[in-house]
């Protein structure tokens, strides 16, 4: 919304603030200034403020609405000019309202003996501020009233109409030629204004060419209508037509204030184009809008803002915004003006008070006093962070990629029993499907690196993979790890994967030939990764490609391994206050026995209180036996005590 500083000043006579200050005040109170331009209007220097109106404030898509805001902020009175009542004429207009479900109010009146002509210079200048070309006096006046009051009005050349004028739901017009001359195909079910034979306008959006105003027009029907905002939004979107009118009518416009806009329009037409009122005012208004009565606690602004806002200031601000206040038995009832259709709750009122009081009065340099609460971070987030740490230490770079993929990619990388999920309406139709494996993004990244001459590639990504089963949409965090170079080997790669698994808490890693192998995998080199008798992912070598790289890929279900870990901690850090003491012990196992199983049992049997670590220091094979040297390191013990515990512990085991 654009507004001239001079217009604000005219409506707020006591205003002393400079143009930029007014823009900054409006920004603070909710209407961000995104443009400030020096202009000339009516031969004088002026300033055009461009403001973003995000909120449901149709009233502020007008000069009058913004002037009210400025007055409230500066604690001044806005002087909205009064307009004389329209001269009565008893002749009724032939109008019928059919689309009653979607129409809140229609005002219409006929004016005869008008002389349409070129607009005066000031009006042409004004239209130019809004990027509108002057379209003759009548149309320009209609637009001018819209900018001043916020109410879109529409002028129909009465002599071009045929019979009754209807507000209907479209069910037989296939297209409309708009007053701009473009032809728009209609979908049916739009709200339209029509006569017995022709479509006159897409209601609330744009007028049609057939009955539009031209330079010879001398009799008009002026109409202002308020619709259910959702139908205007729906029609505007489906027909891809957005206008100044539709922007306003998509928000809640107060039906009551339409009278004021109509009076202004008629008075301006009579003043500048002559003519006389030739009908009574058609007024369809089946359900008058009244403001809600809101019970309000004067302390609420203080509670929400966190700073003291006195009840006196609260009441002053609400009154300055033209809210009625009724105080009875120590209870406060606040009634907003009807044009404040966005205010319905006590919290809405509190916002009004706080924003006019000024957000700049809330200190920013105080440490927030937030109470101590329980940590509810899910384990998978902590685990993912740990995985990132470990993999970067192991030399892998993290990449991130799009979860949406090209057609046909999932069939090459998928190894789950889930169906592919396809988006319905993505404008990026090259990427319609949600990925089913992290391999998708990592392979793309690998190719990009390879194209740029990087021949050694170690990368990983943690992200979501998706799939559908039994009409349920499923997703989970997944870890993909890819290694590619000309001379790396599977055993080197596998060592790193096992290092990762060990560091996050999994020791006993087994591999079984995969039951389902992705198409990109080398079928001879594709295994399921098994830990504690559960499959946690897949590891495979990719089938040979043109790059001649050895490419290995692993995918691990982060959600599954999170569930398997009873506890996920950050890498432990301890303070060492005494030297560590390392003592060895030799053990002998059958060749087939797992040292990991042995260590696991060991953990259960000996007191871990003073043990810092247990490592396999040496291993050699003698016949069917394997001999291991275990190095046990003790902490916080004297040499003597450590030896005593060591002998006792391993004697007991042996």
């Amino acid at each position, binding site marked *: 919304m654009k507004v001239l500083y001079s217009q604000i000043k005219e409506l707020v006579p006591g205003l002393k603030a400079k143009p930029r200050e007014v823009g900054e005040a409006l920004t603070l109170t*909710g209407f*961000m*200034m*995104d*443009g*400030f331009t020096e202009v000339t209007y009516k031969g004088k220097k002026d300033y055009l403020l461009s403001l973003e109106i*995000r909120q*449901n404030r149709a009233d502020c898509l007008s000069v009058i609405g913004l002037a009210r805001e400025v007055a409230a902020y500066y604690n001044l009175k806005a002087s909205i000019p009064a307009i004389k009542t329209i001269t009565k004429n008893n002749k009724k207009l032939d109008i019928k309202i059919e689309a009653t479900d979607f129409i809140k109010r229609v005002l219409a009146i006929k004016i005869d003996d008008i002389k349409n002509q070129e607009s005066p210079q000031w009006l042409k200048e004004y239209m130019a501020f809004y990027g509108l070309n002057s379209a003759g006096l009548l149309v320009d006046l209609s637009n001018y009233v819209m900018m001043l009051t916020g109410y879109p009005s529409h002028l129909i050349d009465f002599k071009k109409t045929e019979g009754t004028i209807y507000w209907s739901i479209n069910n037989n017009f296939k297209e409309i030629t708009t007053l701009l001359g473009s032809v728009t195909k209609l979908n049916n079910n739009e709200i339209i204004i029509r006569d017995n034979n022709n479509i006159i306008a897409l209601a609330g959006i744009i007028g049609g060419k057939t009955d539009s105003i031209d330079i010879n027009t001398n009799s008009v029907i002026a109409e202002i209508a308020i619709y259910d*905002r959702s139908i205007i*939004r729906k029609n505007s979107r489906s027909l891809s037509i957005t206008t100044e009118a539709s922007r306003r009518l*998509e*928000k809640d416009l107060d039906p009551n204030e339409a009278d004021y806009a109509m009076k202004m329009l008629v008075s301006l037409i009579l003043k500048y184009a002559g003519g006389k009122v030739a009908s009574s005012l058609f007024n369809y208004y089946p359900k008058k809008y009244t403001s809600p009565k809101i019970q309000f606690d004067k302390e609420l602004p203080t509670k*929400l*803002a*966190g*700073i003291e806002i006195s009840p006196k200031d609260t009441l002053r601000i609400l009154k300055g915004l033209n809210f009625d206040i009724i105080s009875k038995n120590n209870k406060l009832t606040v009634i907003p003006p009807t044009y404040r259709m966005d205010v319905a709750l006590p*919290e809405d009122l509190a*916002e009004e008070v*706080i*924003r006019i009081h000024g957000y700049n009065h*809330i*200190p920013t340099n*105080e*440490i*927030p*006093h*937030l109470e*101590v*609460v*329980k940590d*509810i*971070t*899910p384990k998978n*987030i902590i685990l993912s*962070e740990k995985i990132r740490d470990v993999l970067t230490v*192991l*030399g*892998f770079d*993290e*990449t*991130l990629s*799009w*979860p949406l993929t090209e057609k046909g990619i999932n069939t090459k990388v998928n190894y789950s029993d889930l169906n592919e*999920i396809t*988006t*319905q*309406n*993505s*404008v*990026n139709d090259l990427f319609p499907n949600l990925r089913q494996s992290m391999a998708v993004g990592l392979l793309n990244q690998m190719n990009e690196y390879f194209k740029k001459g*990087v*021949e*050694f590639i*170690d990368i990983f990504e943690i992200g*979501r993979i998706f799939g559908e089963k039994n009409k349920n949409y499923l*997703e989970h965090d997944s870890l993909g790890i890819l290694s590619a*170079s*000309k*001379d790396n080997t599977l055993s*080197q790669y596998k060592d790193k994967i096992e290092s990762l698994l060990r560091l996050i808490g999994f020791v006993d890693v087994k591999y079984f030939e995969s039951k389902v192998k992705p198409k990109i995998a080398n079928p001879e080199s594709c295994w399921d990764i098994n830990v504690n008798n559960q499959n946690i992912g897949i590891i495979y070598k990719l089938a040979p490609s043109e790059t001649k790289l050895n490419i290995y890929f692993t995918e691990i279900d982060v959600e599954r391994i999170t569930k398997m870990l009873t506890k996920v901690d950050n890498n432990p850090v301890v303070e060492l206050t005494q030297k560590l003491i390392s003592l060895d012990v030799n053990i002998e196992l059958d060749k087939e026995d797992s040292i990991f199983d042995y260590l696991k049992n060991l953990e259960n049997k000996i007191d871990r209180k003073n043990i810092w670590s247990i490592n396999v220091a040496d291993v050699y094979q003698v016949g069917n036996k394997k001999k291991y040297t275990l190095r046990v390191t003790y902490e916080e013990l004297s040499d003597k005590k450590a030896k005593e515990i060591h002998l006792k512990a391993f004697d007991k085991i042996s």
Partner: protein
Amino acid sequence: MNEEQVKTLLEELKTDLETTESSLDITKLWHKYFSDNGSFKLLIKKIKDLPVEEKKTTALIIQQAYKEAQELFAEKENSIKGGELSGNIKSQSENFNPSAPKIGHLHPISKTIREMNDLFVSMGFSIMDGPEIETDEFCFQRLNVPADHPARDMQDTIYIKEPDFLLRTQTSSIEAQTLAKFKPPFKIVSPGRSYRNESVNKSNHFVFHQYQGVVVTEKANMKDLFGTFQVLFKKMYGEDVVTRYRNKYYPEVEPGVGPDMQCFNCHGKGCPLCKGVGWIEMGGAGIIHPNVMKMAGLDTKKWVGFAFGLGLDRWVMAKYKVTDIRTLLGGNLGYKYYENESII
């Protein structure tokens, strides 16, 4: 310069190579002989100053010596690296730098998230995530955005199955999920991915990242919200950061807040980056709307909360000087070997 000088240099290299045993020393040798200011490069540069009649012959001698020197160097380098480094690091060294061990990098988005998470965890926040395939209920309705609300214009949605299933358009859906699942009091932050039905260009993407924060306690207020934001701004942009907080509309909050940072490019004077207004919008925030609390079954007389959402990609791009949003996820992101903060 004569042939003798070239031979002497070559002999010097051979002697150096014989006494070199580590990858660090071999790197030093590379710099001594083959870098732009190395002995061989300096020799080559001198050719242009020679008399015309000497140029051709001397150039040939230097060329042969240079070739031999390179071969000798490569042979020694391979023997050292082959002995002490794994194959992976060897390849790495060929591509990047011969001496440093390979340490991986986090993605700039993850690094930024980690920095922000660390800050919030130090303030007692938990970290939370939620589904990326969301329902209309959790993405819109529970956030006070009913079906016909104009706020939906702000975000065009990618649907999985219209109208109920969609890709979340905002991480506020995690707020709705957390409000539904956990009993207050709680303080959470949620870095996450969101999706909008936008064509991809330099500054817009259909996949982007947001950083959401939610606090529900008995006493949360706007002063706490501003204080929290200010701590974050200072952590990310330094003590001298200039901010402002203004009223801004979002359907899920009331009162709503727009936190802005003074434009770092023009320091508030107005420039093309900030569209002439001197400020850059950094996100949205506010006191959680009573309708949102009620839909989660929370008693608004007892509980009050604030929420904020930040466009994370914008923060990352400003920090790492990335000018094209597609770089962040599109495969063109590289890591300079020594300068972790820079991106090729």
